[in-house]
């Protein structure tokens, strides 16, 4: 029988520890904001993790950043591949250290939002950009996109004033199979790229929750 629950009640490090100490051959599946991640255990070690689009340690570290989401542990499930060979306790220390560092720096808020956005299904890239189009916090460097985003927000702000509307909540542009979603937070811009197959109405509630801090 599978063990099911929510990470709010049972933290991921505890679940990992339990599976490793018990030397379970098992699969731990986590669902967060419509996106699925998995961690596989074998012989008391973490042997594989995946969390779209990452696999291995990167996926595991991103999963360790989740404090909410449904989980399921299934016993006697073999890993499809072995992508992790480090000792599980070292991995936990490294992952939790990364998470702490992320949340203690000056841009902790931006980093946390980006980290949460990257966990939403369909999100390919996300960044915080200044109104000058420079990256404030971004895991990638695409100045053309950032400056186009700043320019777009500037023009739409002018339209808001012109029509006597409140501040624009977000702008969505579909270009070349990508949906670019731009939103203003204070004086900065959140830049999010989705696979264009994901409909705006489906992703909007998740994005709004994260950006307003309700997630």
């Amino acid at each position: 029988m599978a063990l099911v629950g929510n990470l709010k009640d049972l933290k991921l490090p505890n679940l990992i520890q339990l599976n490793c100490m018990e030397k379970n051959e098992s699969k731990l599946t986590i669902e967060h904001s419509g996106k699925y991640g998995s961690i596989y255990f074998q012989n008391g070690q973490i042997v594989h993790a995946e969390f779209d689009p990452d696999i291995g340690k990167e996926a595991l570290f991103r999963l360790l950043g989740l404090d909410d989401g449904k989980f399921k542990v299934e016993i006697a499930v073999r890993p499809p591949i072995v992508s992790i060979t480090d000792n599980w306790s070292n991995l936990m220390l490294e992952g939790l250290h990364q998470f702490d560092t992320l949340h203690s720096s000056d841009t902790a808020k931006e980093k946390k939002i980006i980290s949460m956005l990257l966990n939403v299904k369909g999100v390919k890239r996300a960044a915080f950009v200044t109104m000058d189009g420079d990256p404030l916090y971004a895991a990638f460097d695409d100045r053309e996109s950032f400056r186009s985003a700043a320019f777009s927000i500037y023009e739409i702000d002018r339209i808001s004033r012109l029509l006597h509307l409140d501040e624009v909540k977000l702008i969505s542009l579909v270009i070349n199979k990508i949906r670019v979603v731009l939103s203003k937070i204070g004086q900065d811009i959140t830049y999010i790229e989705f696979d264009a197959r994901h409909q705006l109405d489906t992703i909007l509630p998740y994005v709004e929750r994260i950006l307003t801090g309700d997630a």
Partner: protein
Amino acid sequence: MDDRLQNILTLDSVEGVVILSHTGEMLNRKGLDQYKSEMPELTKRLMRVITLYRNYKWPVKEIEIVWRDTRIIGIADEIFILLAFCRNNASFPLIRMTLNVSLAAIKADRKTQKMLKKMKNVKVNHLRTGDLDEWEINLISKLL
């Protein structure tokens, strides 16, 4: 074209429909009488965004601008931009679908074909430096 735009306007919570050419000319408008005088400025700003992406990235196929109570839903191709102004309680999938069908029908219309022939050689630079303010020029210059 008139009938097609009128059909979109009959959808629940749609307050107006506008069709623009790639030159930024407003070809037709239904509803939105309260914004009549603001339309040229709105068109100019919107065309800048669309042109920017076309010039520096890829052509924009859809644009949606979401405010608290209002949303503009637009679909674009190489010739037209069809925009629906709606309240935020509208059925957005239905509006998007209707816009797509309407744009295809408008393009196939004989009158539109004649209009397209006339427009064929008209080129307008929506990002001409003389029309932009300092901030816009600064951002654009970084893209070159």
